[in-house]
């Protein structure tokens, strides 16, 4: 895969909560059609990074450009336009408990001011559900579904807007390894089908190995190492090594 066009660029990003400096001078670039995994320990600031990108958190310093637009000083309306093109899969799925699967999927469609007829909406919902293989759950409530199914519904909700970038926040956490594998397969499939760029946050080495075109190691708030899975696997730095050693132990 040859990286072509840059869809997202992060430069000199700083973010701190009180005295806890989470991100220190983080630089990163995402190209069209590539899957990048950000690897890091819990609490190393991966989730903060991803929330900065989507505009849920405001960075202290530095710029984030998505589709060559700086999102730092955007107001809600402009931000919403960017968000319509960026999917976000939450760690805890964040399905709306009070709504059925159909309503969950319709929600972003309707909220983003997309002018579509009810019929089109139904078609899009069905298509997204078929993509994740859960068309039969359309009238169920999220509480009735298993963890893996919920993750897939959440993914369907992310997909329904046909985003150009998908941000995955620890997609395999809380799932057994088989279900996790299924989700990873789904992610790869989607990438192929829609040619999306993905930023995946994970510390699951199985996920890193299978899904990544490129890996970025986030350590001490900065981009510590970068490269393909194979390159990093043989990295000599102990801080990088520990992630890969961990997998071999399993």
């Amino acid at each position, binding site marked *: 895969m040859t990286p072509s066009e840059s869809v997202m660029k992060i430069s000199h990003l700083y973010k701190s909560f009180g005295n806890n400096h989470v991100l220190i001078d983080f630089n990163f670039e995402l190209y069209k059609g590539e899957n990048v995994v950000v690897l890091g320990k819990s609490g190393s600031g991966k989730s903060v990074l991803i*929330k900065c990108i*989507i*505009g*849920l958190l405001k960075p202290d310093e530095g710029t984030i450009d998505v589709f060559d637009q700086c999102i730092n000083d955007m107001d*809600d309306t402009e931000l*919403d336009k960017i*968000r*319509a093109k*960026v999917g*976000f899969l*939450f*760690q*805890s*799925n*964040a*399905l*709306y*408990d*009070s709504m059925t699967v159909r309503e969950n999927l319709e*929600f*972003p469609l309707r*909220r*983003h*001011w997309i002018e579509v007829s009810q019929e089109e909406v139904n078609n899009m919902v069905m298509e997204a559900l078929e993509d994740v293989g859960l068309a039969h759950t359309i009238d169920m409530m999220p509480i009735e579904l298993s963890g893996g199914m919920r993750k897939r519904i959440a993914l369907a909700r992310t997909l329904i807007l046909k985003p150009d970038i998908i941000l995955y926040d620890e997609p395999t956490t809380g799932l057994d390894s088989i279900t996790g594998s299924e989700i990873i397969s789904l992610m790869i499939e989607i990438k192929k089908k829609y040619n999306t760029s993905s930023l995946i946050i994970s510390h699951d080495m199985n996920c890193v190995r299978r899904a990544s075109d490129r890996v970025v190691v986030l350590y001490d708030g900065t981009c510590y190492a970068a490269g393909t899975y194979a390159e990093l696997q043989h990295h000599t730095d102990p801080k990088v090594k520990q992630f890969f050693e961990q997998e071999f132990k399993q």
Partner: protein
Amino acid sequence: MSNQTRFQAFLSEAGELSRFAARFFAQCFRPRYEVSEFIRQCYIIGYQSLPLVGLTGFIMGLVLTLQLRPSMVDYGVESQLPAIVGIAIVREIGPVITALIFAGKIGSSIGAELGSMKVTEQIDAMEVSGTNPFKYLVVTRVMAAVCMLPILSVLSDAISLYGAYLGVNVRGATSFHLFWVEVIDSLAFNDVLPAFIKTFFFGFAVGIIGCFKGYNSKKGTEGVGHSANSAVVLSSVVIFILDLLAVQITDLLGFN
């Protein structure tokens, strides 16, 4: 925790609540307006609270009448029973009991709902889905509480009065028409309007406190439970404080 830090925590919470309320007003009058969600919340907050509020109102009216009766008979003013009960219900019992029940039902449910939405990132998900969660969740709920509590309180007054009518008729006989005429005769605008107006503030207090507690819920199940609980406690206390303020203000304005 020392007294000073506790006091500081109290002040900082009061400050945060005020900012939250200010944010509510800022968002309230700016588009876009979440009308359908507002109506849905009205249905949940208003209509679905009616049975509970009606039941408590009915019992309060009945019990109040039966409790007052012996004293009234002692003073030989039994015939004034409808007037006294009517004034008590319309001025105080109706609004306050309704608001307290409302705080118990709605305050806790808003606190728990928003708390768990916060904890499970649903609020973030909404924001990502092109929705201002503050408008969608907070403004609609607070507005629904503000609009529904007065209506609930008025209906509760009506049901209470019916309970009082039955109470009067437990011993003795008064026609409904006479009861009604006596109640209306004893009431004036300055009985009804201040009581009606203060229920808007009660509704606002319950809504804003429930949302505040839920929206700022700490992570975890315990955080959600704490939000729900403190929302009820705080809003009940605030209702009494507002009631005190309301009576002072009406007194000052000479409407008492």
